[in-house]
């Protein structure tokens, strides 16, 4: 179980000489499906990796791509968007808008060299606690394998010279 041997959710925890990296993942869950699945996983006492931090929105349609970029810009190594299955949206079509934005955003991030697995969209219904647990663990594992998303720090260390 991935969370069994974790000792911290800090960005990088040192175990002896070997640095073990624990990704920080920000999740945006819709209030009606995925957030409830998370609650159900809780009431079912399922255990999963502690890397995820949840931001609750009413609908996956509320997830502004700016939120995703802001999370990455502030040190998230991965971002997960969770919504209702197609056709199940509590607001009829919000999840389709989320899907369309996600497809384009993913492509754009790819252009900027950010790995596929760092941004994920999952349809998890209120009853799919098991799927929810799997996604939490799977994503934590995948992003852990990618290592930290080291975007260049806003300010470089100066003075810096042309490398020749």
């Amino acid at each position, binding site marked *: 179980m991935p969370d069994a041997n974790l000792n911290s959710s800090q960005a990088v925890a040192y175990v002896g000489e070997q640095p073990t990296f624990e990704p920080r993942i920000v999740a945006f869950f819709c209030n009606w499906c995925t957030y409830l699945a998370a609650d159900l996983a809780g009431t079912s006492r399922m255990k999963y990796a502690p890397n995820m931090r949840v931001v609750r929105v009413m609908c996956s349609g509320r997830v502004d791509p*700016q939120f995703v970029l802001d999370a990455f810009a502030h040190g998230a190594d991965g971002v997960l968007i969770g919504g209702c299955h197609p056709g199940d949206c509590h607001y009829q079509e919000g999840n389709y808008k989320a899907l369309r934005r996600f497809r*384009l955003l993913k492509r754009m991030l790819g252009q900027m060299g950010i790995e596929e697995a760092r941004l994920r969209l999952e349809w998890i219904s209120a009853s799919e606690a098991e799927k929810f647990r799997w996604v939490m663990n799977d994503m934590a594992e995948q992003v*852990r394998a990618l290592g930290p998303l080291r975007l260049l720090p806003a300010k470089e260390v100066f003075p*810096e010279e*042309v490398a020749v």
Partner: protein
Amino acid sequence: MTAEKPKVAFYWCASCGGCEETVVDLAEAFLDIVAAVDIVFWPVALDSKRKDVEAIADGAILATFLNGAIRTTEQEEMACLLRRKSKLLLAFGSCSHLGGIPGLANLFDRESILDSVYCESPSTVNAEGVLPVLRHKANGHTVELPGFYRTVRTLSQVVDVDYYVPGCPPTPRVLRTALLTLLSGELPPKGTVLAPDHALCEECPRKDGKPENLSIGQFKRPYEVLIDEEKCLLAQGLLCMGPATRGGCEAPCVQGNMPCTGCCGPTSRVRDQGAKILSSLASLLESKEEPEIDHALATIPDPVGTFYRYSLPSSLLRQGKSHSSSNVGPAK
């Protein structure tokens, strides 16, 4: 000192000079300005010896209009100096405001840029792979060049900026209004972009024709279609940045029958122009099935270059990941 005419300076960093041309394009109004203020810096008559700039008392210049982004050590030095010398520092034009088109260089790392210019170029003969160097030593002399930073930065990422004048370049009208605002004495809150805070659609000549039920099947590239000179460009399937771009320019590109490319940046309520246009356009797609969606989106060949044409360095991510120093590999 309030007796004398307010000192105004224009300076350029990494820019094309178009912003300077705008000053010239004030045309007759330019003479009014010369009458009203005392232009102490002017790119065609500029001495940039640090000593001279320092000779001016700190804050003795009322306003410096600095255009161009920051890419070299020298530009950063000048930005810092002028900041100190000026009461008000204005980021003038897209490059200093947002990073500008040269900011797209942030998608590539420095080394590959130098390579493509000095080595890969088919017309360049450079077998030894000579590159410009910081200090060149030749029979006893040392000739120095300014350092070339890894990324392009906006002015406000280097020094504290008071106001922004948007546009690539700002229209003479926007510049004139900005100058009047400063001289009027009713200074807006610090950090204000001296232009209207609504999106371009507000002032677009084609606004009324835009349908209320816009739904996008796929996008057209300007070269693929004959462009109707009256209809809303988005409604014609052309990717127009107008809805996500600050107005004030009076839509000259649309009047030239081409889509807005977003040079004035986002409104004050938006942190990332690219993310916002992405969000709005994607939401308006017709298709619901992933393959169809991808197919439709494939008709935007260059999302980053299109959505961040002028604003990559000021965007939330600021640059591609290619700049990352070596990552810590997977643990185990």
